[in-house]
């Protein structure tokens, strides 16, 4: 099986579960952030705990990846200013709209028109970052050097074992 097919299948499962669990609904997210329901926090904690356990075992065993054969391994980042600054911007958008990249995609998939303006904004946000990166090559070099010192690939795709995308 190709990695594309496998990733698409993982996406189907992810999208169906996000939809069924109500994460597509901004009201469910808002209810969680207002501490009106524990569902959002319990759901997130269960997801992280499961993933953490699985990855812990994978990291210890470091097997070859089933489809690509490369050794399963990764490096992690040290916290930098961009992780905080970016997450503040992200948190404002998330708090007001009750949507984030996954639920925006599942809203579109369910045929919910309210997902369109959020999705258009998301795409514009990515384009904006790319423009800023192109306009400030010097800043990018500084960032790239910092990233090398930090021991990971490049801004926008950290925590990856190898910078496979330019």
């Amino acid at each position, binding site marked *: 099986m190709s990695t594309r097919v496998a990733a698409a299948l993982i996406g*189907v499962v992810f999208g169906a579960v996000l939809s069924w669990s109500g994460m597509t609904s901004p009201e469910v997210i808002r209810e969680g952030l207002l501490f009106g329901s524990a569902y959002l926090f319990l759901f997130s904690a269960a997801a992280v705990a499961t993933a953490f356990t699985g990855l812990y075992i994978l990291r210890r065993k470091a097997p070859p990846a089933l489809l690509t054969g490369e050794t399963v391994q990764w490096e992690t980042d040290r*916290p930098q200013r961009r992780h905080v600054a970016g997450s503040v911007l992200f948190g404002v958008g998330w*708090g007001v709209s009750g949507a984030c990249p996954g639920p925006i995609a599942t809203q579109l998939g369910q045929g919910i028109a*309210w997902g369109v303006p959020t999705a258009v904004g998301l795409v514009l946000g990515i384009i904006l970052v790319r423009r800023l990166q192109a306009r400030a090559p010097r800043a990018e070099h500084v960032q790239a050097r910092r990233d090398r010192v930090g021991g990971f690939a490049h801004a926008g795709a950290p925590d990856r074992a190898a910078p496979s995308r330019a």
Partner: protein
Amino acid sequence: MLHAQLPWWIGGPILGLCVVAMRWLMNERLGVMGAWSDVVDILAARRLSFGPFGWMLFGLVAGATAFALVAGGPDFHGYGWLTDTFSGTGGTLLVVAILLACGILIGLGATIAGGCTSGNGLSGNAMASPASLVATLTFFATGIAVTLVTEALIS
């Protein structure tokens, strides 16, 4: 039955297993923001050769469509507190403008922070990444603060 919310102790672990599957199959970090970026970057280069991340996004959309078909359409009326607060034609336009602005903040912020709720919040924390933990605490704290402030403003 499908309109009932999937219990958290079933839905959460399945998402966690998706992260494990992505790592075990192809040694990649599951992140939906990265999936959007893959599609946008490849389209911007006027190509259609999407990578695994782009295909994951298409799968995500297809999974949601399949769910809506099985469940008999989306269980969605208005857009939460935004359409409750701003009604009428002018209100709808305002909500569209607000959602567009939120989308820009989400795309900009998650790209700068190197991940969103899935990339940093789910996968990054599971990878024991200190940067992801800081990012997650930051966006949860910001999200909670913003929600509380908007709730206070409208009530």
